[in-house]
């Protein structure tokens, strides 16, 4: 069974120790996914596996056989930008740019979770239908992605803009 990465099939590494993160960065020359701690503690390595946001540093590549992985390089087709990528630029949702691919992949996964109705720990009424899209809700749901440059406001602004736009559509 192959691992599908950004639409292409890749053979799983022979060494089971290889993380999904090191597979894409070191072996497939897809360095857009970043290594910030390799401890499951910063979120810089966030990718989408079967559409769900996960940490590629804590995922063994062999665990992804038969699954579909999307990295930052696979988010938008061709040279175009995903709407979130453009929103990050517009709102200056980054400085050094190192945590940025992880933030963006995480936001893509988060938006899907919100659409599915997944609550967060600060959701007041767990039993209720529908979620409010308050700023705090987005902050809580994005808290697994650290940013040391302090672009937090711009990141949340960018995601909010996309959420509001999607809600309007």
């Amino acid at each position, binding site marked *: 069974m192959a691992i599908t990465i950004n639409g292409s099939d890749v053979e799983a590494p022979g060494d*089971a120790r290889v993380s999904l993160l090191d597979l894409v960065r070191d072996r497939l020359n897809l360095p857009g996914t970043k290594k910030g701690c390799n401890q*499951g503690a910063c979120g810089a390595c966030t990718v989408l596996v079967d559409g769900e946001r996960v940490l590629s540093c804590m995922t063994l590549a*062999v665990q992804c056989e038969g699954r579909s992985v999307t990295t930052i390089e696979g988010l938008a087709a061709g040279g175009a930008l995903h709407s979130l990528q453009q929103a990050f630029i517009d709102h200056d949702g980054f400085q050094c740019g190192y945590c940025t691919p992880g933030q963006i992949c995480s936001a893509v996964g988060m938006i899907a979770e919100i659409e599915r109705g*997944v*609550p967060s720990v600060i959701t007041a009424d767990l039993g209720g239908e529908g979620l409010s899209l308050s700023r705090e809700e987005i902050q809580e749901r994005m*808290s*697994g992605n650290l940013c040391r440059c302090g672009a937090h406001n711009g990141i949340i602004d960018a995601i909010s803009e996309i959420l509001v736009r999607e809600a309007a559509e």
Partner: protein
Amino acid sequence: MNPFSYSRAAGAADAIRLGAVAGTKYLGGGTNLVDLMREGAEHPEALVDVTALSREIEEREDGGLMIGAAVRNTALAEHRAVRQRYPMLSRAILAGASAQIRNMATIGGNLLQRTRCTYFYDGEGSRCNKREPGQGCDAIDGFNRNHAILGASPACVATHPSDMCVALAALDASVHIEGRSGKRSVPLVELHRLPDGRPDLDTVLEPGELITAIELPALPLASRSTYRKVRDRASYAFALVSVAAALEVESGTVKDVRLALGGVAHKPWRAWRAEEALRGQPASEDAFRAAAEAELADASPLKDNAFKVELARRTIVAVLGDLAGAGR
């Protein structure tokens, strides 16, 4: 990380067969095990991927739930029946880690999460009885702000880090286990051990035994329950103290209660004494405080964590007060 082999089990029987080989570990989401392997705290020779175990959340007719071990944390937290019947469980899971980790972690794996004691993590540079029995403990006289106030031993003062397990402890959950010698079921509160002289043993699992499911009995009072986690930053941090509680009040009197604490002991701490002290008492702040004090009477804080005793007391009183207030 030492080299290891990797295989996927098709189901429980297959996993147990593969897991019979010494040096084998079961792999769920990997969010803790992979980290511990990288840190040298775990060095299995073989990993058996058990994410093909059941991912079913079965709703029993009596209102209870049977939860497959491979159910992801997010899936359990977002499940409609959990949110309505056991909100404390939903909230406890959502209070833990980050969304990415919750998407990866399995509930079976979460039960086996190991301590965050920094001396345990620092295998090369520190002494730790949990890593190497008999070596000594550098935490007891070291930085122990995050450590245990209840049930610790001279050998180990580490705490259990899971949020989910605290709720499960309060909810009378039981853990279904399979091994070569057959199946058994253990109450969650008996799955994890206190450290005593063998802190290297986190649980009562025998070698090769596999967690296959968690069973939640019907517990109507749990529909009014919550989980409160107190931590150093607003999100994505382990608990200093957490409280899972369910409360049933009738005519101003506590009819029934479930209470468990996190961040205070080597295992999720079911507050039996507090529960006992509360049943039949008026649902008042005084009674809540008396119950908290009964539970914490034996607390023995360390150099840096005396605040946890007071924090636990206050948090218990506040959580019970909220539940009592919401029920009025």
